[in-house]
């Protein structure tokens, strides 16, 4: 990377709170990538010694409904306000939404209130009438990937592994994909801005890997709400994912790193769909390119058990990646759940290769 590039990205820095966070969970991540949120809480509490509240009273931010025009903005504002009131109940001021869509929604809501104070008053009234609650606007809204980015150096000190091929000593080549709603709504709320976000790239570089800059780097992952949620548009969704993979293929990435539930989901699962529809995979071995969340990656490098991180429920299997980094794992443990019970083995796809017998 040349120096101008670095300088340019640095113009977009944002404030990220140091400690005392209110965690707002995602609606979908716990079923798609069940280890990620737990890993984040563990990293913050055990590795970084931070205080973060995981509140059982929380609920949706309406993001998916809002972006598919089912939920009106007034409703969205009021529901976000209730979440803020829960944060206020805990006497916290730093709001940390797990999902990038939620992050976009919260920043949009707060920005709306800043620019149109009458909307804020209206929301206060709605919330009061519906629930009798009051709320304060968070002093800081940061995405969990912002926090990991902020402490990437501290975490590196504690890491057992690096993003390096342990046999060749060469850095791993990583595609980073930042969710659109992280920086494309308000570029000044994104580390590195909208066009060239630095949040994931910064982690990759700090932890020893190499970021791949490919032509469709900024293109949507393919989720795009309307593209996926409306069955008639679903073809666009896969088409966009395909476009990205076609563009990155020749760079031979070792894996894809994302910070948004939708992106992780679609870049992972559509590889299966494309394989089954067209017989095409984008790696040399027909196994697909692993797609990880930043929490999973941090956890792996910190030496957490891959199966505790939930890597077995990804579509594209990650053993090849673990082998490259030199991470020890027990294949026999793969489908033994946290409770010690066998969780079942998924059906084997017809074309996409996996290293289990389903």
């Amino acid at each position, binding site marked *: 990377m040349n120096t101008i590039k670095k300088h340019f990205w640095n113009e977009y820095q944002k404030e990220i709170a140091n400690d005392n966070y209110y965690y707002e969970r995602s609606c979908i991540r716990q079923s798609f990538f069940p280890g990620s949120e737990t890993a984040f809480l563990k990293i913050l509490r055990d590795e970084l010694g931070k205080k973060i509240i995981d509140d059982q009273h929380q609920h949706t931010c309406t993001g998916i409904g809002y972006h598919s025009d089912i939920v009106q903005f007034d409703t969205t504002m009021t529901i976000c306000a209730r979440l803020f009131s829960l944060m206020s109940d805990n006497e916290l001021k730093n709001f940390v939404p797990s999902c990038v869509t939620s992050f976009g929604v919260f920043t949009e809501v707060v920005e709306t209130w800043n620019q149109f104070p009458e909307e804020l008053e209206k929301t206060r009234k709605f919330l009061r009438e519906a629930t009798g609650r009051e709320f304060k606007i968070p002093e800081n809204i940061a995405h969990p990937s912002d926090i990991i980015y902020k402490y990437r150096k501290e975490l590196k000190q504690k890491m057992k592994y690096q993003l390096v091929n342990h046999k060749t000593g060469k850095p791993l080549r990583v595609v980073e994909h930042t969710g659109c709603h992280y920086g494309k709504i308000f570029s000044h709320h994104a580390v590195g801005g909208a066009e060239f976000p630095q949040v994931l790239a910064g982690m990759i570089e700090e932890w020893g890997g190499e970021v791949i800059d490919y032509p469709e780097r900024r293109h*949507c992952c393919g989720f795009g709400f309307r*593209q996926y949620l409306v069955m008639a548009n679903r*073809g666009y969704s896969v088409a966009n994912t395909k476009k990205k993979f076609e563009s990155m293929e020749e760079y031979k990435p070792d894996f894809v790193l994302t910070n948004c539930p939708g992106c992780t989901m679609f870049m992972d699962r559509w590889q299966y769909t494309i394989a089954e529809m067209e017989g095409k995979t984008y790696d040399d071995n027909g196994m697909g390119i692993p797609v990880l969340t930043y929490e999973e990656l941090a956890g792996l490098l910190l030496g957490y058990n891959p199966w505790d991180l939930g890597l077995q429920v990804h579509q594209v299997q990650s053993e090849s990646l673990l082998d490259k980094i030199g991470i020890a794992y027990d294949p026999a443990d793969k489908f033994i759940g946290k409770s010690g019970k066998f969780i079942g083995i998924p059906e084997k796809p017809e074309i996409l290769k996996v290293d289990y017998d389903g």
Partner: protein
Amino acid sequence: MKNWGFKISKPRVLDFDTANLDAYNRLIEKVPSAHRCLMCGACTATCTANLHTTFNFRNCHLMFRRGQFEGLAEELDKCMLCGKCKLVCPRGVNTRAIIYNLRIVLSDLNYKKIEL
């Protein structure tokens, strides 16, 4: 009727004297910024639907301006209303509102009805 072995060709001229150019005013009432479009195509270049289907927003808008309504509603239905086009427009045209309102106007003109 007698088969002459040849036909009288229909005119293919864009006839500004007979085309319904007034329908455009109904769009302008709802979306005044539509007037500002200079047909540069930045919106189409960035549009995902355009990359994968025959849909071309700029061209649909132009055809409507010219009073050419045939097949337009079907084309417009390919838009996802994602609003990406709005981000790149150098003239600040409210592209998404154009698409939305075009469908309503076309429906009123009996081109592919929508229930509202």
